[in-house]
């Protein structure tokens, strides 16, 4: 509760946090709140400019773009949540274990992540798509794996600092086995930084999913996704430029609010960072996708 109260003190962060929350509410209720069926085609009403009935106009098949943007919110939220969990569930245990035991395993895993970090995440994601094939689950695997090195490193450095603590030493002296120490002490104490890094990584996941879909390597039509909708809209720039409005605004707003809300949360959980927002952008730049 105290954390929530402190978080609410940052007005800008609070605003974008609410916007981000709104996106997730839309995602959860998408099946009920779309004004018309996002898949229903009606060629007679194709490519109509925005009106009271169709706020963002209709696409080449006469589908309501507004409804499709809403459903795309659900698709994006699902993809990013699952791939984030994927990275967390695999990356955190690996990072935690190698950080705690150190030695050869640590050196090998670190060299491997070093090598992977040379390549932009989008490239790794594209290569993974070559193997698993372009699809929604393909995007999840590609994003989850390509962000894996970042999560391994975060968990490792957190575990490394916890290892030095007196309470870990006390647990060792008391005869606790190392899986016990990892689960009870290390995991418990690194959960804070990991939650923060997860929110900070969220924009990267969203951008990755939409970039892959824009390239035709991600979510396949007729399922709507913002990047994929923009790709389709590009073919109608001359006759129906209004088609880009909806997906472009939704995508940018989602990334912006995830960025700002993540920043705020970071500041709340680590007050030492107060007023040094610029510096925290640095590590994230390295994970930028497009």
């Amino acid at each position, binding site marked *: 509760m105290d954390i929530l109260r402190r978080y609410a003190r940052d007005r800008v962060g609070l605003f974008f946090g609410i916007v981000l929350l709104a996106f997730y509410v839309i995602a959860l209720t998408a099946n009920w709140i779309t004004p018309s069926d996002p898949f229903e085609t009606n060629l007679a009403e194709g490519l109509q400019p925005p009106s009271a009935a169709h706020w963002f106009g209709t696409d080449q098949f006469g589908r309501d773009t507004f409804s499709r943007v809403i459903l795309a919110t659900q698709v994006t939220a699902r993809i990013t949540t699952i791939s984030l969990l994927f990275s967390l569930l695999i990356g955190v245990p690996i990072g935690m274990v190698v950080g705690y035991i150190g030695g050869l395993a640590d050196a090998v895993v670190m060299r491997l992540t070093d*090598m992977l970090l*040379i*390549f*932009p*995440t*989008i*490239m790794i994601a*594209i*290569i993974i*798509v*070559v*193997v698993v*094939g*372009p699809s929604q689950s393909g995007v999840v695997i590609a994003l989850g794996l390509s962000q894996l090195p970042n999560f391994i490193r975060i968990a490792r450095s957190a575990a490394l600092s916890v290892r030095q603590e007196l309470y870990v030493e006390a647990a060792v002296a008391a005869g606790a086995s190392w899986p016990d120490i990892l689960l009870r002490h290390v995991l418990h104490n690194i959960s804070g930084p990991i939650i923060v890094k997860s929110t900070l990584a969220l*924009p990267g996941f969203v*951008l990755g999913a*939409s*970039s892959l879909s*824009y*390239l*035709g*390597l991600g979510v396949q039509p007729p399922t709507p996704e913002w*990047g994929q909708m*923009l*790709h389709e*809209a*590009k073919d109608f*720039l*001359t006759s129906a*430029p209004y088609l*880009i409005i909806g997906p*472009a605004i939704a*995508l*940018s707003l989602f*990334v*912006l609010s995830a*960025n700002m809300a993540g920043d705020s949360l970071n500041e709340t959980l680590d007050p030492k960072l107060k007023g040094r927002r*610029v*510096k925290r*952008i*640095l590590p994230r*730049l*390295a994970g*930028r*996708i*497009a």
Partner: protein
Amino acid sequence: MLKLILARLVFMAAAGLLLLTFLFGLFHAIPGDPARLIAGDSAPEALVQSIRQAYGLDQPLMTQYTTYMGRVLHGDFGLSNFSRQPVLKIVMPRLLNTAKLAGWSMLLAMSLSLLLGSLSAMYWDRPLDRGITAFSLAGICTPIFVTGILGLYFFGVHLRWLPIGGMTSWKHYILPVLTLGLAQAAGFTRMVRACMIDALGRDFITTARAKGVPERVIVFKHGLRNALLPIITFFGLGLGHMLGGAAVAESIFNWPGLGRLMVDSILTRDLPLTQGCIFFFAMVFILVNLVVDLLYRWADPRIAHD
């Protein structure tokens, strides 16, 4: 220094061999029969069988691996499944086109971010700084396919000032370079600003001010030179990521580069071509990384003695 460069080249060769092994594994990890893929879905079984023999796909895996590596080391990446042209011949001109796009964009991003970042640090927490920060935040949060399409619409379709795709005249460069360069400049600016604020807070800056050195010299000579070290690293990292972004930019502006070739080859399931593209892209990333590493040592001689 020479010894170091040599060691790095050996590392690069090793990385290349590892990568080729990985790509070979990739080729075999893909579900489906590669011979069937080359022949097409409706081809008769006899044709598929003859292709299997011609490509050596009926050989044991180890034999296939050694022949593959042997061929690649002689510069033979095989033929594209569709155009039947040697992969190397298709990839090389595309690589050059991507280098042109990335080079100009990088130049724009670096010069703009050094200027804006330094200005932002000079006028820290004042309206100019806030404006520049807002610009860079907007750039970081907008994916390049959004800015690219918007630019395409306003300057290509609405105003008709610029061509909407291809790369035949200097006019074709403007939109892609601006899209890619500005997106990268947005990220760089925040970084240059942070490094400059840090550098301008040091004691020797106060000393320079006390001596009456003009502010312009303080910022661009004393400040920038000391902020340069972290900046070089981030520019290098940024170049790698910009090459990733180039794949998207090329597909927006129909730029005949390596990124679009790679995406197209994946969509048409042209595996030899995909392998070639991935290999050359990866080698470029490794090369960029090495150059950054060397530059870093040059900028900070202290590291070389560690």
